[in-house]
């Protein structure tokens, strides 16, 4: 069971290191013709030594098949409205789920055996993304490209979560009869 201290912590945002100007050509290379910024809510749990030193973070949600691994400190700032799309990534995975993910990571790369998950560090975070849209044409479906706002890499592993978030959001909007309040501004440039 996850400790209360983590799940009640306020949501923080990871820094968006990749701006629109840098994201645009990357998305274009993947065939996108339109794009917008987004945030995906995930759960972060620290990986570190028994001494308490934090070395990396696992980022996951209960409906993702695998955790993402992020090296170094989790630099974040409080979530503020910036007009970007905010998507729900899913609920917090259990501690045993995090431990199992970490076990598989270590089996793949045994050097990491000395590091442990640190249960008390669980916190919600919002992960910066750039969403690219490749339009549908006759005989071809419209495609979504998910780009990390941290590194600029395409993150296919997050695509199911992003699509699920978009679907949930569309359903909520349909039920409310109005658009969500957190994506009412367009991305610059």
């Amino acid at each position, binding site marked *: 069971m996850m400790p209360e201290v983590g799940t009640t912590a306020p949501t923080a945002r990871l820094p968006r*290191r990749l701006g*629109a100007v840098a994201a*645009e050509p990357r*998305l*274009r*290379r*993947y*065939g996108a*013709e*339109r794009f*917008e910024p987004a945030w995906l809510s995930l759960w972060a749990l620290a990986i570190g030594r028994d001494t308490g030193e934090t*070395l*990396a973070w696992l980022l996951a949600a209960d409906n*993702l*098949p*695998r955790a*993402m*691994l*992020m*090296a*170094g400190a989790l630099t974040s700032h409080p979530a503020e409205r910036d007009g970007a*799309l905010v998507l729900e990534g899913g609920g917090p995975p259990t501690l045993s789920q995090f431990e199992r993910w*970490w*076990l*598989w990571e*270590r*089996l*793949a*790369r*045994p*050097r*990491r*055996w000395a590091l442990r998950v640190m249960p008390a560090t669980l916190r919600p975070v919002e992960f910066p993304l750039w*969403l690219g*849209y*490749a*339009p*549908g044409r006759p005989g071809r*479906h*419209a*495609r*979504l490209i998910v780009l*990390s706002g*941290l*590194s600029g*890499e*395409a*993150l*296919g*592993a997050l*695509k*199911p979560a992003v*699509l699920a978030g*978009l*679907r949930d959001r*569309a359903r909520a909007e349909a039920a409310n009869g109005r658009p969500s309040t957190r994506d009412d501004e*367009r*991305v*610059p*440039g």
Partner: protein
Amino acid sequence: MGAFTWWDTAVLIVYVVGIAWVGARFGKDQESTQDYFLGGRKIPGWAIGLSVMATQASAITFIGAPGWGFEGGLERLATFINVPLAMAVLIVVLVPIFHRAGIYSIYELLERRFGALTRSLAALLFLIARGLATGVVLYAPALVLSVVTGWDVNLTIVLMAVIAVSYTVLGGISAVIWTDVIQMFVLWLGAILSMVLMVSSLPGGWGDVFAYGAASGMFDTIDLSLDPTVTYSLWAGLIGGVVMHVAYFGTDQSQIQRVLTSPSIAEGQRSLLIGGYLLVPQMLLFLFIGVMLAAYYQQHGLTAPDNLNELFPRYVVNAFPVGVTGLVIAGVFAAAMSSLDSALNSLSAVTVRDFYARYVRPDADEKHYLKASRWATIFWGLYATAFAFFAGNLGPVIEAVNRIGSWFYGALLGTFLLAVLSHRSNGRGAVSGIIVGMAAVWAVSQTDVSWLYQNFVGLIVSVVVGYAVSLTAPAPSAAQLSDVVIDETAPDMQAILKGRSDGAAEIGRDARLTRRRCLGLILWFFVSLAALGLLQAWANG
């Protein structure tokens, strides 16, 4: 010159200890800052690519390919000329799906798609095939050690196995990208130096090499024969070789693991891209050294050793300057350790993840799994050692590895393609496809048909039988197809994406990165083929 001196021994020890120290000293820092994803990457792409090459095949290439070239000239390149095409297929078809599925072992995808039996069967085939191939990889440095020291090769096999298993159990040395890069440069330095020394020892220099190669038909790379019993025809290389390499790089956990652990699809594709461009020139280089060795032996009236795998190590020991011999032999050792480490590690990981934690102890704690993984490493070390004793009888080591893979890979690839491309196939069909596909491979192996075609036969039979048998059982559920059906193609998602796209900012001109990458590989294939065709045309007047 002429022997492995104390200086060489000192260089070898310093190099191997130095590599191990660098790995132990910098490995952790590197993993925490560079190897993980989402952060800024500081290691250049070319270094990562060379690291990929180093862990893939450098040691057995160094030892096996010259013997192969000595025996058959450049015709054996037909086995590898297809690698750019195979990488293009992987980049387009399999890598995006593996990445999106978020899996740690590729056999996990088969369980989600077809059920536990298919996963277990595929993982078992991987363990058997990779375990045998690891025996060959173990044999290669043991042979070098035997040539250098004069010790019996069976003794050096045991010695190398103990060292390799110890390295792996203690955490491995393969994680440090820069040490892999150094190894690659050392091996290439050894290759280029050997070419220079051989040419300078021939009265006519390069002219003698090309004249001997042309006269002996060693530059006849492209054999257009449609006869399926011609082992290294262009068609065998294209039809069977593409299947073999797609399967080897795409369904063998020890190879695809690096792609699965890469942070993004693009990065996974990049590592395959490097292999796609560099593997053929590297093979050409070492096969050409084999041709040069043949000319050298003929001109000097020497008799080749019975075991052609010893050919190049013997030449290095006899011809290289003192100290450089030690350096190059050390490079072979370090590269072999890197390959062995990653092979033993993936064997252990699949054993624990796909079998032990799946069936035997699903809820054990991590310390227990760590202990289990170490015992698994030791088991696979013993298994590989047992097979290594026979590896010398299998001919050139590089062909031995590919022949072993050919027994299994075609049927395995067929199952993955069924999983990905056919939404009607199911577990019953997949298992039937694997079994009948392998039986077909066995039947073909009893004939004179080129072993390269075995992969193709295994693929076709497993796909056809797999699909046909699938029709006798219910179609898979939507949940079973979730990893292979692209979510955004559903009509409601298309409407949602269109809605969001209409409101999003515009980017501009369309340019497809993946398509461009694949076009580059296909172009590279034709350039390589044309170059070899020109060489052949020149050699035949």
